[in-house]
């Protein structure tokens, strides 16, 4: 499902070039617009489609198994925290979907660990990770161990 770029919509801003995980969205030197330089290394991941401010990028299903005449369009709105999809079948049927992409203002609740209190020596010597034992168990304390769970290791065949 390689991507392609509409000539009249692309303004060559390079957002797709910046985000493509496969390094296949490049700027054409003659037209100063983006295009997919290596369709057979495209995963149809839509990262570039979602990132394009001009909605200039679309996907045409892989030629070796997908007939023409379909479209799957997407609008990702980070401010609203939503993503909307419109699927158009070859026979004209349409389906639409809307999903949340985040529940919080972007990035606000991700801690900056340089600013939190560092670990005590006791914590360093324990098996705990940052923010633990919170959430590991419902009520009673620490990280699970072989002892706490009544376990041991045994060599040989166990099914």
């Amino acid at each position: 499902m390689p991507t392609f770029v509409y000539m009249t919509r692309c303004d060559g801003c390079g957002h797709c070039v910046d985000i493509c995980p496969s390094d296949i969205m490049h700027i054409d030197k003659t037209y100063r617009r983006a295009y997919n330089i290596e369709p057979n290394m495209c995963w149809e991941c839509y990262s570039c489609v979602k990132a394009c401010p001009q909605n200039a990028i679309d996907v045409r299903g892989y030629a070796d198994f997908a007939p023409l005449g379909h479209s799957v369009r997407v609008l990702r709105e980070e401010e609203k925290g939503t993503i909307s999809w419109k699927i158009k079948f070859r026979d004209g049927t349409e389906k639409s979907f809307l999903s949340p992409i985040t529940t919080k203002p972007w990035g606000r609740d991700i801690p900056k660990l340089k600013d939190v209190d560092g670990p005590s020596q006791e914590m360093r010597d324990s098996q705990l990770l940052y923010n633990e034992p919170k959430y590991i168990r419902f009520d009673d304390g620490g990280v699970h161990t072989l002892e706490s769970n009544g376990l041991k290791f045994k060599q040989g065949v166990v099914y």
Partner: protein
Amino acid sequence: MAYKTIVEDNIDVLVAGAGLGGCGAAFEARFWGQDKKIVIAEKANIDRSGAVAQGLYAINCYMGTRWNENNPEDHVEYARIDLMGLVREDLLFDMARHVDSTVHQFEEWGLPLMKNPDNGQFMREGRWQIMIHGESYKPIVAEAAKKSADKVFNRICVTHLLMDEAKENRVAGAVGFNVRTGDFHVFKSKAVICGAGGASNIFRPRSTGEGAGRVWYAPWSSGSAYGLMIEAGAKMTQMENRIVLARFKDGYGPVGAYFLHLKTYTQNGFGEEYESKWFPELQKMVGKEYLDPELSHRTHRPIPTCLRNHALISEVNAGRGPIHMVTMEAFQDPHLEEVGWENFLGMTIGQAVLWAATDVDPKNENPELTTSEPYVMGSHATGSGAWCSGPEDVSPDEYFWGYNRMMTIEGLFGAGDAVGGTPHAFSSGSFTEGRLSAKAACKYIDDGKAEGIKVSEKQINGFKEAVFKPLEHYKMYRNEIVAGDVNPHYINPRQGLDRLQKLMDEYCGGATVNYMTNGKLLNIGLKKLKLLEEDLEKLGASDVHELLRAWELKHRHRTAECVTQHTLFRKETRWPGYYYRGDAMKLDDENWHCLTVSRRDPETGEYTMEKAPVYHLVGKDD
């Protein structure tokens, strides 16, 4: 050479590859090393890189211990039976006892996790899986890594690990090049956490031409985790344990939510249930201990995924294909229909594109399933990767050498696909492994284990020359021909990749030979891999982008060689449905209830193979 050399010195923790594992490592490293210098080197842009770049619709590893759902040892038992008995149970237990704290943090950060309206707990898809709206899973996790790291170098293809010249077998950093500018980057670091990816595209894919990009695992998963570590001389484990996926045909859309949440099921081309009729014969191959349909029916014990694949493959070979997923019942429920579609839009959009293109509405027809080409990786339902130390309070002596998730090279740690023997970690488990390795790496440095590292200009310049050789080689011979790609002096990366995929497919048990191989075929495969290795010294790259493909190919080749060595070593068929050794068609617990461990000597290129004992987690009175 026109390209600049850019040196980043005095790094404490270098994260090489920042998918879910690498992001977990960078995030957590800041807590344990508040004054340490933490640097990320990533091949793409960390906002959309790794296996989760596209998003995910489920977190497949969550215990729910706080709701009394599962304990860590339950998950160990599950992974053990799914992988036919052979996993690193110490590492799995350790991952499972921490993974819930990772998942709850994701929720705090804003990742939308679906809730069960009846009890307010996370919505279960299956016993281990919870459902999420994960379109922005990777950007959210990347945000956490960026807040912790001192510097993020995007678009750096890491090609080699640097090794210390003061102390043998100790890591000293890594080198690579910027895939846009071509600049050579040197990262001198006290510890390295390898978060690079597993391998798609080493076996010939079923798709042809343009569709070659629609592989199940991302096409940018170039086996670099293995390429980097094997090349440096790290010991590897369970590399023969490649995985084959039963998925929706052509688009490789996921089936987990379909089976578990939508309760869809499979049948053959004639509308019949087919799985159970293959089980009696299969039971003779693997033993009742591994396949007991009655017991599985009564309890939580799963039928191993490979064995279910075997039934699918056998049914198709018997002429009763195609296999269909029966969706027409579930999709009459509008809620389930929505889940079915959003599942694809959230993580395999290509499948939605394909169904739109072919007018397949699962409400009106049952879509086809197929088995994929094999993949080599260590975070999904298989456990290829490096031989790592476990945690001190859990691991048996043979599995412990000082620091959690440290490999057999000092100062080299790993997470996700890089760590061997820990299947079923998935996204949340990989992030958790990154956190564990970051804590251990900081301790390694604080213990003074990284003092006095020496890296000579000679080592750096040697790598620089090697890195740019495909560009030089191309320049030297390009003008000997008029035009085109046919040149007697070089092959380009795509031509080399085609050769690798063909030989791995035909000699190492790919899809077109129904996953069958034997000792004779594997030996021929190894010879051909050697010849390919010679030709990889003559790769031609016309620009920096092709140079990226050249290095991905080299990493894939090294991965493939190691896979073939391991497959040759294990003289049994442990995972029918993933691959078959035609010369040893039975599971053989007497000789092969062990983990396979290899080491490639970086000087000679020779492999040494050994068996490592399997330790199982049992009740203290068992």
